[in-house]
């Protein structure tokens, strides 16, 4: 019998059972499948049981007593999907986000997500909204979607089962590639790019990897149900993946002060989330926050124009002025070209 068919037969049998079903009975019911030597039959059933558990099938073994015999039983109250009573608005949020992620080309746990969407839509009938939200995620350049998507799927499985991965990684900062074994702790999405965070055995420390830069990836398949590592208590993805260029951990933290005026003053909170903001006059705001990559901040401040000034400290101002002078030198008018201001 086909394995899928056998497991579905088991589901039908167990869902219908009022009494526990013993191993001996199961062997009688499926003589062709669980026949043969005891060892082989038990191994086969153990594999089927593991698959049922993986499917979320609430199977348990009950020890019999005077009134009941030993055997396998399923808790029907736990098996069936109940109505979540999601409001129209809640359903729209989950459905729009889930569909957008699924259509994005690269989101970890795509299969899981697709099943989840079907299930939350089960009771919704025809009232499911048509999502008009689209996201392009996770790829360095066009045409990489399939590869990134496949990597994310492998990483999702490895993260959830706590299995190490072997990866071939190509960083733009260095020529060539490196081979590393990594304990994957999690995946973070920042500005459309997926980052893997994990313990790198090569560097003996926590490292981040852009998923689109992973050339090859293998998940440890040995003892699939036994975890290879534990994620340290208190680990947070957020603490390791930068949202903004000035948060890359290249240097020791330096507290920087900016002065924002005009339209930028009202946007200070969203431009520099987490910064301490202080009004210093009519329409003027001072923002103070730690910076670990000064060049990243200098570039951003330059792009904000005259409404954003670097106040201090002096080394930050000097860095910005040096960068500005460099850009100006590169963009000096070329002789013979007339430019209107």
């Amino acid at each position, binding site marked *: 019998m086909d394995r899928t068919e056998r497991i579905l037969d088991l589901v039908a049998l167990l869902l219908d059972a009022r009494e526990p079903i013993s191993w001996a009975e199961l062997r009688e019911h499926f003589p062709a499948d669980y026949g043969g030597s005891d060892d082989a039959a038990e191994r086969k059933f153990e594999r089927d049981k593991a698959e049922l558990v993986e499917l979320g099938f609430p199977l348990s073994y009950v020890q019999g007593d005077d009134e009941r015999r030993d055997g396998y039983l399923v808790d029907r109250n*736990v098996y069936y999907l109940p109505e979540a009573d999601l409001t129209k608005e809640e359903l729209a949020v989950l459905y729009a986000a889930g569909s957008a992620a699924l259509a994005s080309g690269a989101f970890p746990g795509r299969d899981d997500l697709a099943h989840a969407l079907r299930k939350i839509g089960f009771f919704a009938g025809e009232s499911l909204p048509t999502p008009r*939200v689209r996201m392009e995620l996770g790829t360095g350049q066009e045409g990489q979607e399939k590869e990134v998507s496949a990597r994310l799927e492998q990483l999702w499985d490895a993260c959830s089962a706590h299995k190490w991965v072997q990866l071939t990684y190509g960083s733009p900062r260095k020529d060539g590639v490196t081979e590393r074994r990594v304990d994957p702790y999690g995946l973070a999405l920042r500005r459309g790019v997926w980052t893997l965070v994990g313990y790198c055995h090569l560097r003996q420390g926590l490292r981040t990897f852009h998923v689109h830069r992973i050339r090859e990836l293998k998940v440890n398949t040995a003892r699939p149900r036994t975890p290879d590592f534990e994620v340290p208590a208190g680990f947070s993805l957020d603490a390791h993946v930068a949202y903004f260029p000035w948060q890359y951990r290249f240097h020791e933290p330096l507290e920087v002060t900016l002065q924002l005026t005009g339209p930028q003053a009202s946007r200070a909170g*969203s431009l520099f989330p987490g910064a301490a903001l202080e009004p210093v006059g009519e329409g003027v705001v001072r923002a103070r926050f730690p910076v670990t990559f000064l060049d990243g901040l200098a570039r951003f401040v330059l792009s904000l124009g005259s409404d954003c000034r670097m106040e201090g400290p002096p080394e930050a101002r000097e860095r910005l002025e040096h960068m500005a002078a460099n850009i100006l030198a590169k963009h000096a008018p070329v002789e013979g070209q007339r430019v209107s201001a």
Partner: protein
Amino acid sequence: MSNVHERLRRLLFLVPYVSKHPGVTVEALAKALNISREDLLEELDLLTCVGRPPFNPDDYIDIYVDNDRVYVDLDQRLFAPPRLTAGEAAALAAAAELLRPATGDALQSALTKLEGIIPPAARERFRDMYRKIDASADAPPALGPLTRAILERLEVTFGYASPGRPAEPRRVRPYELLSHRGQWYLQGFCHTRQDARLFRLDRMEDLAVTTTAFLPPPDARADVPNPARGASEASVRVRFTPTAAPYVKERFGQDARPLADGGVEVRVAGDSERWLTQWVLSFGGEAEVLEPASARAAVARAVHASIGS
């Protein structure tokens, strides 16, 4: 995940789905399961062999296709799908984070309800897996009202700041929201310009949803903004130093032309001066606009403005 696992999940959903939607067409069912018609018919064949011992005629699932519609007479207790697994709930919750904070209270209450329908034994695993994805994109608050306006087909108004000019009032039929490289865009028909337009959400001010309804075209789909695409006479030539070259090559692929000194050169569309200057400045001193001279001057002007010189 193994093929057997995927197939089982699909089949455990298929029977209840047909049970709930008797007479669903083969096409609609295949679409709901995201499989081909041929694969669906194969699955239906398999299901007719499924049942419970002792396998009397009434013990089999009775599912059949009649006149291209699917019916189930005996579902063998598969009348509802299984609950969400920890992995399914975690993937959905992580995806929902993509629209935070724009979705407000609805997201939080949806997630609470979601957790409520996971089997208690799976909740800890759900929380553990949910923590493994951090997809909290910086969804701008405008996303919430715009999603509503798109779903309810209502026109919106907002002020839109073009580069170097103050905000100008626009009235727009919103068709689709698009996120690309962390930037959110609205695609729609602009009454003010009488044309289809792509608007960056971070340049909108005073967004309001009106009560004016409209009918969207069926095929409205925003083009992904690609600065290297459509490079025409107005294109801008930018040269990058060897330091920045690997990053530029990574993004532009074949569109980045290698130079003798190890740097690269790209041509990008020059229709947005503000985008161009911001982009060039984001490379610090590692990028130089070669031509046209007006674009070089725009970069220099932006730097002068920034340092107040």
